[in-house]
Each structure stands twice: as structure tokens, then as C-alpha cells.
């Protein structure tokens, strides 16, 4: 394996997935709740690192792989701040090698 392949960043990985942006937000987070959330499980569960933390919770739905796991951990371990549904029909991630 070539060296760059070996240390492939998550961003490079995500660039391999085709996305069609949903103009409507399909993830909505009540961020104030996150400030009081100690566990912040969304930062760790998401395989696409949709959620990051710098002073406050930030999220970028564009790399969302639509697993739905953030919803489960947020509601059971976190602050119940995430409202999540699938992107609209035909929108979001599209896999060729699933």
C-alpha cells in the first residue's frame, strides 16, 4: 500500500462518497443543551465526524453517512439535543460499494 493510502484522513475518505445536498436541514441540534452535556457521545459515535466541538457544538451535515447512530446515543447518553431524520428522497449520501 502506498504511504498516503496508509494514513488516509477521514476527509479524504469522505471525499470518496458522492453526496447530493438536501437544501432542507435534516439534522437540527438544540445547541444550548449541548453546553450542559458531559458525555457528548455524538463526537465519538459518528463515523463521519459530523459533530465537532470548539467552544460549542458544531455540525456539518454534508458528510453525513446517514447511520442514525447520533440520535440513539444523544438521546440515551447525551442531552437529547439532536433531532434527526433522513435527508429528502434522492438526497444525501449515495454509495456505490455498500
Amino acid at each position, binding site marked *: *500500500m502506498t504511504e498516503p493510502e496508509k494514513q488516509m484522513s477521514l476527509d479524504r475518505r469522505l471525499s470518496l462518497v458522492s453526496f447530493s445536498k438536501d437544501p432542507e436541514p435534516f439534522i437540527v441540534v438544540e445547541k444550548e443543551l449541548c453546553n450542559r452535556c458531559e458525555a457528548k*457521545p455524538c463526537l465519538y459515535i459518528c463515523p463521519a465526524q459530523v459533530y465537532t466541538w470548539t467552544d460549542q457544538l458544531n455540525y456539518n451535515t454534508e458528510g453525513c453517512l446517514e*447511520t442514525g447512530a447520533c440520535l440513539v446515543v444523544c438521546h440515551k447518553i447525551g442531552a437529547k439535543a439532536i433531532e434527526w431524520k433522513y435527508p429528502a428522497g434522492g438526497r444525501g449520501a449515495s454509495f456505490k460499494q455498500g
Partner: protein
Amino acid sequence: MSLEGFEVAVVGAGPAGSAAAITLAREGVQVLLLERGTFPGSKNVFGGRIYSYALRRLLGERWKEAPIERFVRKEGITFMTGDSAFSIEYEAKELELSFTATRARFDKWLAEQAEKAGAQLVNEVRVDDLITENGQVKGIIAGQDRISTDAVVACDGTTAGLARKAGLLNMLEPHEVSMGMKDVVELPAGTIEERFGLEAGEGAAHVFVGACTQGLRGGGFLYTNKESVALGLVVGADDVSIRKVPSHSLMEKLKAHPKVQRLLRGGRTVEYNAHMIPEAGPGMLTRPYTGGMLVAGDAAGHLLNNGYTFRGVDMAIGAGIAAAETILEARRRKDYSAGSLRTYERRLRDDPSLRDMYTFRGVPSYLRNRRLYDTYPELICAAAEAVYRVDGTGKRKIYKELRAQTKGRVSTLRLIRDLLSGARTF
């Protein structure tokens, strides 16, 4: 296109949905098969293997027309530490029992079979809600469209949106789901066959346990396709969240292991994808049906990970068939009430393949034993090192060496207990 006049709406054109649609359409039922992706399979992700029996049951000898990547000849497992690996491999006698596949091709093909049988497939539709009257499901709502049907088959995946709307599930618990991630790495067919010791068209399936998950519940997997290798990792959602380990970092750890590096050398990663895996088993929903609706596939926990075989697609196909047969029976009675549909659960339990889900229902709690992911893989590798290493310092007999290796790692009593309870569970 008019979306009226359909008797049954099947939500989700994955294996469960398409199997249900095929079974219903064949009997002349007007079936609407709805898929939120641009085509069936475009949203679907799995490890890589399908057990053939389910497809044969659904389609007879036509099952072989499926987009099969490779028939699985070799089954392997590797226990790994950061810098060592102990592997066992079995070469199956019969080649056609299971095959590797990719969902973008397989699910698309299976949905085409549903269309050929007479089902109406509509892509790019997200079903948002159910139409309910007096607790009875009477159809589905997708955006502005309200589609009335006699019955709904919800095959909408692990997030189980429709089952939640119907009150069959509140919210999954983190320990009931795992995160699965996968890289697909392109390699020439000849390289795959040489590297894995396979004949043309034959494939390998491999599992990795140990350092790759940093002691968290889960493991790695590898499946060979025609001209690519699917390398992935599954980890418990509770474990990554509570121990604050980013899930994708484990994928990188697996990929960086020397053994995996050698298997993938020269390959080019072409896609990264992920899926939430239901691990709760068929007890995931309070019941897999309500008046006017049946739930099948991941959405109902129809999946079996018993620690050494990982079965989702065959279970989903079986459940889809069972759901369809339940509806056919209800249709003859012209009664789609919960009381009429309750035979679904019996069908699931009585089916010889689906019954495995109930047989292995104790497995998830056994698999929560952390020693399976750190202590025991380390012990196995250390024992192998002690047995095989000759450096002139003098050797002990195997039994003595193994006993010495357990010292400080696990008490004899605990080891025996884990072994006995494993024997009962598996």
C-alpha cells in the same frame, strides 16, 4: 404517476422489502415498493456476505443470476495484538453456500426482480409518517402524498422510523446497536486470488478480534470481491461513546495493522461507508406488527451476529417472505387487524433459518464481556509466541507455557467460567 389503488406499500427496497414485494406481487397483490435512495442499494451498507439459501428460497434456481462477487471458500479469524496475529482458516467443502456482494448492485438487482414480478418501484421517496385510524395503520405519508393501502410493510432500516411512529419501539439503547464502517480497496482479481490463496471466482471472509478495537466490543472484517477487498470494523455504540474513542479512528487502527497492510498492499481505496447495526435481536420491537403494519429486516432487529457468523441479508429476506405470507393470509380473510397479523411472529419463530435468531438470543450479553476483546486475544497471541519462539533460552512444555501465560492476565476460575458460559451461549 398515480399512487392510488395499491393494496400494500412496502417501505424500503432493501432485501426485506424486495423479498416481501416479490412474494406479494407474484400472488397478484398490487404492491408499491418505495425507496428513498436514487436507486435501491444506494443507501445500503453491509460487510459483504450473503448466505445463498435465502435467495434460493425466494427465487429458485434463478438465484444464480444475482450479481455475485465471489463464492466464499475460505473462512478465517485472526486474534491480534498491535504487533502480532494468530490466525485460523477453514476451507469450505461446498463453495456455493455463501457469496460476497455489494449492495448497490445486489439490492438493485433484487428490486428489479420485484418489478418483474409486478411490483411498482418508486425511487427517491422518503416516507415521513403513517396514516392511522383508531390505532390501525391505513397507509403512508410521503411529503405531500397520502397513500392509502390495506397494509404497510416497514423495511426502513435500523433507525426504525415507522416502528417508532407506530409505538412499537421507543428509542434503541446504545448497547443494542453497533457502528459498522468499511473501506473498499481496489486490487486486481489475480492479486486477490494469489494473496488469499484462492482459485478464480473464489473468495475469502475474515474476522479480526483484539487490538483493532482497543479492547472495545467489536471486531474487524474483510471480504474479497471480484476486484476489491472490503475491509471494515464494527464497534459497540455504547463503548465508543462512553470511552470516548472516535469510531473512525479504530478503522484507521485496523488498516494500519501489519497483517492488514500486507493484505491490502498496492490497493486503492475507492469508497468509505458506514451503517448502524441492530444487535438487540428480534426482541428489539415490543412486537413486529401492529394493525395494518408489519416490520421486517434491520427495522425489526432481524439480524444475527452470534460471534462467528454475521447474518443480515438472509434474515431480512426470510422475514420479508414471512411478512408477505402473513399479508396474503390476512388478505384472504380480508382482515388486516393486529389480531389477524399476529401469525407473523409465529412464522418468524417457526422458520428453520430465522429460528437461529432466537436460539442465539443470549449472545449479545455474552459478547459484552470485555475480556473477549483484550485479555483473550492477547493471551492467544502470547501463547502462540511462547510456543513457536525458539531463541536458545530453553523451552517449557506447551501446557506449562500456556499456564504461565494466563498468570497476571486472568484468573483460572474466571477463564473456566468464560469458557463454560461461552459453550452454553454459542
